[in-house]
């Protein structure tokens, strides 16, 4: 019997291999004398993986018999994920959660999740898609609950586990229908398998697409499948919240794009309206939900729902410009959220207010180096000019108008207007001497406020001066302004991603 050894493209797989090796090393370091080196080893692993990915830039290849595709879309999204993970490692230094869960385990889980995300960004087969999404989710369920002494953290982990499993099950169920309807698990095979019938002609395919879409909407926290987001975000250790808010969303959007813009591209006319409605709903529900939130983590959670709606707009138009805009916005979103979360973490550790908005009141006078990044982040998320957020919105709106979805562009404009009503009060709390005598603020001295819990006592009164917190915040804020004034580098980065699909 003649047996051909399968061709293994080690160069293409090298980033995944590097991450896998890194997980093992970090995990082993926990039981070795090098216990304290886990963060350093994790950063080293992430840097290696990033270097290998950049090496593969502009050289698209199919891997593992076409189950994975390492193209510029995958690489650009993976780089966003790796950047966010590296920042998470820095932000997790001295975090109670890392101590309690064990630094080695915590970082190994983080790397496991990153591995899943990098894999997911490359997936172009239902099987690798599902494996990747589970690989990224399961470590996150645990990471959410790593703050073992806090009830809310455990609650967050459990909630995420249950809702996440439901999402995964829905996804898997949908995949089964798709396979049944099209006879293939490959995205390309699905595209040819359903093109004869059309989506609406075949109930199997229709149900499959709908369920898969719902599963993806769970992962990207798109309304109305977002209800878990604020609760999970609020309870999870803050560095993990920041990681989930950006990295999970980025990776899930990568496969979202690949699934809809590759496998289902021929039927674009049929699914576009449905996704457009989801995007619009997400924009409205996220922005309205964020109004009046006193907990910054919940606020950022709801704002993430709204931002996911904007990003989905880039997918809806099923065009190269749309994917470009989506990747650009994800990049900008990563920097804006990173700056915000770094400041929230610093204040959480040095004030008794937890993640309540009270924690940043008067910040401009107290810690200007923290106030500026949070201000720029809020202005950027609100889409004001001279920030990357403005250019991102401009990019998305241009793609939407070109794709004949002007009404969705108007939704983005209206959503942005609503969003000012919750982003700007955060800025006002930092810079303006308002409400100082109001009863709300007077009660803030006690522990009975939103976002704070009895356990939220300051753990590190000097956190606002720690370089590993201030530097990521400042660098991310500088990037937001830089790409708002000189967007061309990020535009070219995003254009590579878009041209790899179309």
């Amino acid at each position, binding site marked *: 019997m003649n047996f051909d050894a399968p061709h293994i493209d080690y160069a293409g797989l090298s980033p995944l291999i590097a991450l896998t090796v890194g997980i093992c090393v970090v995990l082993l370091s926990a039981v070795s004398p090098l216990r304290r080196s886990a963060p350093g080893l994790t950063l080293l692993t992430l840097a290696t993986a990033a270097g290998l990915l950049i090496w593969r830039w502009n050289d698209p290849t199919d891997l593992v018999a076409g189950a994975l595709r390492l193209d510029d879309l995958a690489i650009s999204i993976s780089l966003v994920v790796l950047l966010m993970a590296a920042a998470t490692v820095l932000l997790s230094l001295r975090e109670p959660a890392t101590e309690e869960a064990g630094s080695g385990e915590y970082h190994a889980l983080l790397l496991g999740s990153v591995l899943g995300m990098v894999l997911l960004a490359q997936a172009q087969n239902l099987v690798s898609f599902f494996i990747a999404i589970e690989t990224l989710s399961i470590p996150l369920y645990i990471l959410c609950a790593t703050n073992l002494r806090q009830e809310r953290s455990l609650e967050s982990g459990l909630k995420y586990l249950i809702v996440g499993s439901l999402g995964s099950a829905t996804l898997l169920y949908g995949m089964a229908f798709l396979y049944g309807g099209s006879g293939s698990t490959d995205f390309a095979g699905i595209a040819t398998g359903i093109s004869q019938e059309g989506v609406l002609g075949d109930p199997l395919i229709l149900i499959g697409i709908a369920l898969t879409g719902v599963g993806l909407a769970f992962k990207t926290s798109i309304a109305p499948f977002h209800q878990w987001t604020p609760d999970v975000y609020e309870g999870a250790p803050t560095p993990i919240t920041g990681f989930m808010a950006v990295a999970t969303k980025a990776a899930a959007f990568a496969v979202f794009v690949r699934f809809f813009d590759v496998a289902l591209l021929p039927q674009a006319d049929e699914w576009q309206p449905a996704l457009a409605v989801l995007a619009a709903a997400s924009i409205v529900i996220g922005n309205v939900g964020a109004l009046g939130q006193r907990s910054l983590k919940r606020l950022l959670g709801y704002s993430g729902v709204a931002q996911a709606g904007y990003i989905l707009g880039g997918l809806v138009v099923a065009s190269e410009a749309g994917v*470009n805009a989506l990747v650009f916005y994800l990049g900008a979103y990563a920097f804006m959220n990173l700056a915000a979360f770094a400041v929230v973490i610093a204040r959480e550790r040095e004030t008794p207010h937890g993640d309540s908005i009270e924690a940043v009141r008067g910040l*401009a*006078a107290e810690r200007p180096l923290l106030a500026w990044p949070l201000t720029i982040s809020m*202005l950027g998320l609100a*889409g*004001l*000019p*001279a920030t990357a957020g*403005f*250019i991102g*919105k*401009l*990019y998305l*709106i*241009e793609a939407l*108008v*070109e794709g004949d979805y*002007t009404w969705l*562009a*108007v939704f*983005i*404009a*209206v959503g*942005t*207007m609503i969003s*000012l*009503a919750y982003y*700007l*009060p955060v*800025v*006002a709390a930092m*810079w*303006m*001497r*308002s*409400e100082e005598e109001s009863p709300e603020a007077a009660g803030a001295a006690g522990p009975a406020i939103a976002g704070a819990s009895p356990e939220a006592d300051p753990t590190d009164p000097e956190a606002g001066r720690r370089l590993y917190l201030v530097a990521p915040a400042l660098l991310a804020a500088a990037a937001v302004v830089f790409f708002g004034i000189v*967007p*061309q580098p990020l*535009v*070219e980065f995003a*254009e590579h991603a878009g041209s790899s699909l179309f």
Partner: protein
Amino acid sequence: MTNSLLWTPLAFGLIGLFLPKRLTGWWATLGTGVTLALAVALLAGFDSGAAGLQDTVDVEWIPGLGVDYSLGVDGLNVFLILLTALLWTGGTAFAALREQERPHLFFLMMLLGETATLGAFLAQDLLLFVLFFDLMLVPFYFLFGAWGTDRPDGVTASAATLKMIVYTLIGSLLMLVGAIATGVIAAGGGDITFSIAELARQPIGEGSQRWIFWFFAAAFLVKMPAFLLHGWMPDAYRAAPLPVLAVFSGVLAKVGAYGFLRVVLPLFPDATVEFQEVVLVIALASILYGSVMAFTQTNVRLVAGYSSIAQLGFITAGIFALRADGADGAVLQMVNHGLVVAPLFIIVALLAERSGSEDLREMGGMATRAPVLAALFLIVTLATLAMPGSANFVGEFYILNGLFNSKIAFAFVAIVGVALSAYYALRLYQRTMHNRPASQQNKGIESREIGLRDGLVLVPLVACIVALALYPQLILKRTDASVQQTVSAVQDQAPGELARR
């Protein structure tokens, strides 16, 4: 030239961050002074006969999106740029004379505001215009919110400012969508450009013009503000610090009116003709409502604020007469109003310092020992009410002339506004300077002459009013060619429509 003019204020602002606190104010004033010198040089080199853009800068900014960094000067904006530079110098100097909390940030925001405003006037790329138009809000958000005054009835400065931002951004964000849609539709699948001159060459289809017109109009009418869209004005005006309010009211409102001339008329000529009467109704309503409110208010700031609504109504009416004389008058009146309202707010600040109140009922008798201040105020007042002999009279005359020739019914209503303006302007002057206070027990009023240093700020501004009154042709001569060109775009597009009238 245009480039250095645009970025000088911001550069000074950033350097100012590293100076000691007591110097920042003067450093910022120096920055605005340099900008003013550049603006004067720009005017000196301006070729008054040419209709097209001069001193242009055109660099690709985001080629992937078709956005260019392009600036230029023509008759429409050259005097508004000069006005901006002048009022900012006055406002900044006035603020530098007084103690400011956190002066570094205050003056950085002032200068950032100047750069953003100059950018909005200079931009010749539609998206660059929108960007600067929105960017103007950011510094004023901080200036109003962080240095504003909270009202005793519980409306905090930050709440008032939030209201202003939300109102104005409603318009601007829709304008962003409209601007992008204009570029995309005009490209028709080809290369996208947002150059205003390019887009004006071949306006987009009438159906698209209709909705995009209103997206732009919403942004500009809120900014002015016009009647029904002015909800943010009373709170924001009462909260704002006065030196900032002087430049805000003097310049930022004009950006809206300027936007109509720069963007709406050339790019959406069919829609402009179609909705001419609707906008004129809004403009007349602003004139009447603003005037009536101005003479019922007792807060000095609100008198000035509502009078601005009325004046901007006149300017809008002049533009939407869609004739060269009306638009000429509108451009002249934009400069006039800026020159009048900024000194007015500085005088209000001086009066408030002397009487400890901004309520008309608490003021009065100020002229007795302050003849110079009273004389300066009188000049400003007479200019406000468009006394014959003032440049405002010339401006209003041109506007009304244009309106008579295109829509005579509207002109008759607008004339009522002229009469009303005399009433509120004189009432403001009399109640503050001459009448004794109603409450005689109020001993807080101090009739004190204007100080030398404040005088150095106020006198040049008032001198500009006088100079312009003597020689309004300075402006009209240079704007006319550009205005003719802008207005002809509308008349070319719809010759049938206009001929029928």
